[in-house]
């Protein structure tokens, strides 16, 4: 892998919601490949490239906390907006939070820190002017300077991600502690974890893989691998 990148991301909290526990959100123990892809895309992405996550290093012990918030129960109905557009007035277009309130708890990760190891492949939309080197340089330049398209987040937007690029020749940062929760000693089976969502297929199905933490590292199967289940 001549053109891999390594990015250290950390934050106060994170919530990588398990799809089976969405109303009262419960986070996965570790950042999912799709969330890691989102972090990289927040820094640099073009339709010509596709980020592929190779491995996730878990630098901090895995801890949870619970936060309960008032949330609204509904989304903006597109049909109503369309009719308001026709009418030419925004009367009646609003959502009353105190009549449509849901209190939901979220079980979130506390003080996570990861190293995302990734590379990118060129897609069918790459033109003649797109080369691997160009996009790699762009990503490295941006990440090294702290530039981003929008501030990346850890699962949800209120949990901001700090990021720093690890130089290609730098050794991997050691984990702050080596606990059993990170899979030190005996490997930890994290069960089925979301790998990514297939946005190309009809219905946008989710794809899963069997996640394991070994000595603080979660290997991620490449696209098309038989380990990825739909």
């Amino acid at each position, binding site marked *: 892998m001549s053109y891999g990148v390594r990015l250290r991301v950390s934050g106060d909290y994170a919530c990588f919601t398990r799809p089976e526990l969405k109303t009262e959100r419960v986070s996965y123990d570790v950042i999912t490949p799709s969330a890691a892809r989102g972090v990289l895309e927040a820094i640099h992405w073009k339709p010509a490239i596709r980020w592929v996550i190779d491995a996730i290093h878990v630098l901090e012990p895995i801890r949870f906390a619970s936060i309960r918030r008032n949330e609204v129960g509904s989304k903006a109905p597109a*049909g109503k907006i369309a009719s308001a557009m026709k009418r030419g007035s925004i009367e009646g277009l609003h959502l009353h939070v105190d009549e449509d309130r849901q209190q939901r708890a979220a079980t979130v990760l*506390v003080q996570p820190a990861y190293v995302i190891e990734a590379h990118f492949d060129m897609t069918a939309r790459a033109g003649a002017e797109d080369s691997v080197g160009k996009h790699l340089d762009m990503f490295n330049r941006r990440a090294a300077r702290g530039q981003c398209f929008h*501030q990346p987040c850890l699962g949800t937007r209120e949990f901001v991600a700090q990021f720093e690029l690890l130089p290609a020749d730098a050794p991997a940062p050691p984990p702050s502690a080596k606990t059993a929760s990170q899979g030190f000693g005996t490997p930890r089976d994290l069960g089925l974890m979301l790998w990514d969502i297939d946005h190309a297929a009809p219905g946008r199905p989710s794809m899963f893989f069997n996640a394991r933490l070994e000595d603080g590292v979660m290997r991620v199967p490449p696209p098309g691998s038989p380990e990825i289940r739909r």
Partner: protein
Amino acid sequence: MTTLGHRFDFVFLFDVMNGNPNGDPDAGNLPRLDPETNQGLVTDVCLKRKIRNYAEIAKGGDTGFAIYVQEGAILNERHREAYKVARPDDPKVEKDKKLNPKDDAEAKLVQKFMCDNFFDVRTFGAVMSTGINCGQVRGPVQLSFSRSIEPILPLEISITRMAATNEAEKKKREDGADDDRTENRTMGRKHIVPYGLYRTHGFVSAHLAARTGFSDADVAFLWDALKNMFEHDRSAARGEMAARKLVVFEHDNALGRAAAHDLFERVKVARVDGGEAYPIGDKRLDNARPARSFSDYQVTIDRADAPQGVTIHELL
């Protein structure tokens, strides 16, 4: 409306005196606490609500400043009823199971309409759907959880009320009383933080601003809202809340010139005790009296050799 060409990162400090800045529904409305450090928390959505409310007060009814996610009822809705032309909803936008190009275009139109008319959609984004995902607007403004500088001490204050809600309550009190006093007294509880200084970090992405049409005027209004929102959010529970410091880092391009967390470290809050400033967490503070006002803290902004292309604005 010119959209934003610059990325902004900001540090916002606000304090609370004898009030509850943000109750925790899980803990019987006690002020939110980080159980590991005892620092107080205020959620991002709590501040967003206040920004929305301020926008409604300051710009109420202005074109492009309607608020989609509203609190309470709006009175002037009745006035326009007469002018409304009732039209049946368009059947095309009903529960389509697929996003074909036509719907995509429609989704774009719908999103543009919402962004043009609603300040909160343009600022924070919104999810629009008709049973399927009709696209969502990601707003340029991103707020993080606010955290108190030092651990807070939530107090529980018992209060009494000289009235009963209903007969049954009155009767219960009479039966329980062992003397002839029949006051309809009921007890209540209030939770307060004697003093807490909270710090929050926020981000404005120029690229997302271009997508929603968030303009230079909007960002100026956002700073206004942060400075003034507590002035219009008084209530029995809140105590005295005030915006204390707003430091905005403006990058001279859309991508930014430096990492946000490096910039945020330039804003340091120290604890003042007996005329001396100590870094937070200093062991010598263990015997210091607890902070009870903003003057017990000292905020310094390190302006030395700021990264090229980053301007530091101290707006408050």
